[in-house]
């Protein structure tokens, strides 16, 4: 069996990548993808914990399924907003969407 630490390390790396993406990227879609990366790191954590620490119960797995669902809805919503902004202004860059102070 692969030790639990490996999963956690993987998850931490993926999470950190996601955080970096959110902070470094200026394109709304890229930010969203980075957030997805973070959420997947969370999923890895949950599934790994569920498999290793909580045998017989599947709370972690259920949590992961719900996170996937919510993330999908979130992306759907965010894309809808990006599209609306794009139609009004023709940009998906967060920097250019600066009628207000950022």
């Amino acid at each position, binding site marked *: 069996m692969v030790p639990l630490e490996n999963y*956690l390390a993987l*998850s931490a790396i993926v*999470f950190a990548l*996601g955080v970096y993406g*959110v902070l470094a990227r200026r394109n*709304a879609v890229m*930010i*969203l993808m980075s*957030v997805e990366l*973070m*959420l997947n*790191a*969370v999923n890895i*954590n*949950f599934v790994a*914990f569920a498999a290793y*620490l*909580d045998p017989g119960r599947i*709370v*972690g797995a*259920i*949590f992961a399924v*719900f*996170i996937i669902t*919510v993330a999908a*809805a*979130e992306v759907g*919503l*965010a894309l809808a*907003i*990006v599209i*609306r*902004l794009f139609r*009004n*202004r023709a940009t998906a860059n*967060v920097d250019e*969407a*600066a*009628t*207000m*102070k*950022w």
Partner: protein
Amino acid sequence: MRDYALFIPEYIACGVALLVIALELFAPRLRKDLLAYLTALGAVAWFAAGLAFLDRDPKSYQGLFISDDFTAFFRLLAAGIVFVVALMSAEFLKRQRGVDQGEFYGLLLVAGSAMTIMAGATELLTAYLALEVLSFSLYVLVGILKRDLRSNEASLKYILLGAFSSALFLYGLSLVYGAAGTTSYAGIAEAFAGRDSGLDPAVAVGMMLILAGVGFKVSAAPFHMWAPDAYEGAPLPITAFLSTLSKAAGFALILRLFSTAFVTDAESWRWAFLALAAVTMTVGNLIAIQQKNLKRLVAYSSIGQVGYMLISIAALGYGDAQVGLNATSGLLVHLVGYIVTTLALFSALTAAVSRTGSEEIAGLRGLAETQPFLALVITASLFSFAGLPFFAGFATKLFMLQGATTDETIWIVALAVLNSFISLYYYLMVIRQMYLFDPLGEAVRFRVQPVLWGLAAILLLGILFIGMYPGPAFEFSEQAAKPLFESASAAASARVQAP
């Protein structure tokens, strides 16, 4: 057996939400403000149903949700907020084009129900889902003005940062789950209390991430960046909604989570909350001084208010159930005062902006001349925010700070008081515009729409009532705060008795 009856008030709310959406969909020619009144009626029914759940013994739904006085408190609060915001919107949306009003009102109700679930959740997944339902509703509501670029932008920034923060929150949850092996609050508390060694670094990181996530929801600095933009871009009633419901819901979640699940490690997270409180109130009030836009001003001022409230959360971690109870009831009563004040402010602002069309502070010039009643309501609300006597903010803020004062927190209470002094300065700048300057153009008195007039009047009375006779509000809050600590103290005594 499963007790579905616990959710009857939320069934009503969601039922009305569906009804409103369906009505707009299938009867597009219906007068739109009927939807608003229907929503308000639904909120009343919801409120009435919620009253029936007061003063009952706590009852759990499958260990996921608990119906006690704390939940009931937030349920009533949510119903009240939805009621007011719906009526406010009825007037506001008349002049907006391209708004899907059915969705608008439906989402108000859904968001309100989500807040109830957040308050009652006793399990991480339930809490998370409720949080997301609330957030999603707000994302849409902020961007509901489809053709308004600012509204679109606000919504985009809100959702991007919101998604980021919920990812942080979730990562924290996953670490806590990993350490405790369960997602139920009680189970986490038990697991943490039962371990031999001190605080696990993973759990510490998890708690900090959770703190960051909920800090975002209540717009605590440094996680507040979304708030001014979202407030500015959102339609006025939604700004009111954001600054009341979303904050109250965030605090409901924090209170239940930190007072039950994480109570063992209070020593560790207390300082984080204290620091957060100090930074939040200072940043909020200092930046508010420079604002020109009313909504941004309110945004920063509400960030300042959040700073005060976070002191109570820090006091929660003092480890003493009595102090926790005091702090919580103080927080709840201040929340009530804050919400009533904010709603009063916004119903007056909605009426004023509908006439002047300007959301700048300078747009209120000479309001005392053209509409003295609105000027009075705005002044009263601002004074209440600043914590001047006669108004709700004075008594409730005093109770809150008093409840949160411990030997260690006295410095931050002093900081809070200093901050409310700073806040008075920028409130006076608004009041100055209304009273000291002549209106632009001719000073014609204008009429306020009757609904808004009534709302503002009732809320003004509310501000005065709470300010001058806070007893009932306080008793109610204390009653609501008790369930959080009864179980904790019972568990503590049980632990002591165990060999």
